């Protein structure tokens, strides 16, 4: 080998780096492919009912009766998913409405009011809440919340109220910890300026800190909603699992996730009742994507406003 070739050859380090780069590209590509295949497979299965079985999207989204094994007077399958879609949204929105004030109170307490020790105590309290598995929430809901509601209001005790009670505790830590981050990001001189103008602590918190942290808090709330919307087992255990339009907060109902969990094991792959369930999964996935998009929009607005 002549000298020129030797000089032109890439060094050991360069080759090592190429190899390393390849490994890291491989890992990230695996994750990327994974997400694409999840979306593709769920979408392909979920669209099956509309393409193969000819169910119209309108019947699916607005129909009131969910009983995929039977057909109605016109020979069309009963796959109205509106009661479940409605219940999923109702449970999500109510749980977030209950959780958000509590989460904001804890976040304000930890960032603005608490001495260091109390703040770190609350921090571990929140971390513990995150760690409790959803089946345990469901189990406690089943043996504590449901009997309690039955005792207070009669009926079976299962229903939206029980689901909301369980869910708001589940999303509380999510909303809290993200709100804390956004409150911490408010520049210190905002606080000082407000106090220097003679504002009380509450005026400072309400008119200055919370307002400038709004994009972050909104993001936190949306993440909480996404978590509530997608939670399956805890909800399934306490909501009663009747795919009907809920009459009130304590009548048995069913969400998208609970219908899915119960149904997939009881239907045969490729049949219409099974396809109908995959369509529910598709709705669930699209909603999750929508929540993601919403977060992106909120963040963009927040950035352009602060810039």
């Amino acid at each position, binding site marked *: 080998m002549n000298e020129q070739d030797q000089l032109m050859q890439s060094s050991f*380090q360069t080759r*090592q*780096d190429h*190899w*390393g*780069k390849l*490994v*890291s590209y*491989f*890992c*990230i590509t*695996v*994750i990327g492919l*994974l*997400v694409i*295949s*999840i979306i593709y*497979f*769920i979408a392909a*299965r979920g669209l099956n009912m509309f393409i193969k079985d000819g169910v119209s999207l309108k019947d699916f989204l607005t129909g009131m009766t969910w009983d995929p094994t039977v057909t109605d007077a016109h020979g069309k399958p009963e796959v109205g998913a509106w009661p479940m879609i409605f219940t999923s949204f109702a449970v999500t929105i109510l749980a977030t409405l209950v959780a958000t004030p*509590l989460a904001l*109170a*804890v976040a*304000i*307490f930890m960032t603005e*009011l608490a001495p260091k020790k109390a703040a770190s105590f*609350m921090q571990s*309290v929140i971390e*513990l809440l995150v*760690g*409790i*598995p959803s*089946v*345990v929430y469901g*189990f*406690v809901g089943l043996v*504590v919340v449901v009997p309690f509601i039955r005792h207070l209001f009669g009926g079976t005790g299962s229903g939206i109220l029980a689901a909301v009670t369980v869910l708001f*505790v589940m999303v509380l830590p999510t909303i809290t910890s993200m709100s804390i981050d956004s409150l911490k990001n408010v520049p210190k001189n905002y606080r000082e300026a407000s106090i220097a103008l003679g*504002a*009380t602590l*509450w*005026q400072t*918190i309400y008119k200055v800190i919370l307002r400038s942290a709004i994009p972050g808090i909104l993001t936190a709330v949306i*993440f909480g909603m*996404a978590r509530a*919307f*997608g939670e*399956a*087992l805890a909800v399934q*255990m306490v909501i009663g699992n009747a795919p009907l339009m809920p009459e009130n907060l304590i009548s048995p109902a069913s969400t998208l*996730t609970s219908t*899915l*969990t119960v149904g*997939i*094991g009881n239907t045969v792959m490729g049949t219409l009742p099974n396809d109908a369930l995959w369509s529910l*999964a598709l709705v*669930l*996935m699209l909603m*999750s994507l929508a929540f*993601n998009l919403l977060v992106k929009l909120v963040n963009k607005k927040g950035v352009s406003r602060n810039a």
Partner: protein
Amino acid sequence: MLNAKKANQLAMGIIYVLVGLVVLILFGLLGYIILSGLPHINWQFLSSAAQSVGEGGGIRDQLFNSLYLLVLTLLISTPLSIGAGIFLAEYAPKNGVTEVFKTAIEILSSLPSVVVGLFGYLFFVIKLHLGFSVISGAIALTFFNLPLLTRNCENALNDVSPLQRQAGLSLGLSRWKTMTKIMLPEALPGILTGVILGAGRVFGEAAALIYTSGQSAPTVDYSNWNPFSATSFLNPTRPAETLAVHIWKLNTEGLVSNAHAISSGASAVLIIVILLFNLGARYLGNHIYKKMSARK
């Protein structure tokens, strides 16, 4: 009209009441789970097999399955997420492709676990004919765990002082060597903490497992160490009901007369193990940090 001082007092009062409420809910919840579960936990409960009808028996197999799945999941997801974390922290070019990858990770982290489980069911259980098995379950849990670990890894690497990186590069080391031999060890406490916290999440997950690792726990032979033998406890192609799935099943099917007692005990075991993970993460993080930074 409320004056500013009164409003201030009122608002502070409300905040303190709400914070008190949250603390109360948490301690009520934890206290209830542990106090109602502890009386049912004994050696018999932990070491005997579950029965599907009549008296429900113990949780031996479920507990083992949960731990086994956890180990397999971590074995698959940790290297992958470290690789992806290195990509994001070091190699990622600032362009659209990187943005797509980042979005993909965000999407994966917010997908409901039941959807991830259903994908696992569709692809691994049915398409690849793996059946309800430990390996299908471990892969589904990996999906669930990947985004969290990757982000954690990226953050841990970004937190390392840039001086370390510059020093490595100026010594003529390749970027890859700098990352794996200088940055990674430095970021290890952060990465480990993330792995252990993720482990707690994985340990309690059930929705992604119902249709991947299955809802039955066949009797296995704990003295058979050959992973390819059908009766071995290490066999990755057998179905494996975990502790969390067991609790769910007991409460939704109701074939067992003392379902309540067993679920209370199993919930307490679950919570205690997760608490240990949390404490372990904290201790290990501090310990390694002290050891590596020689700070007392």
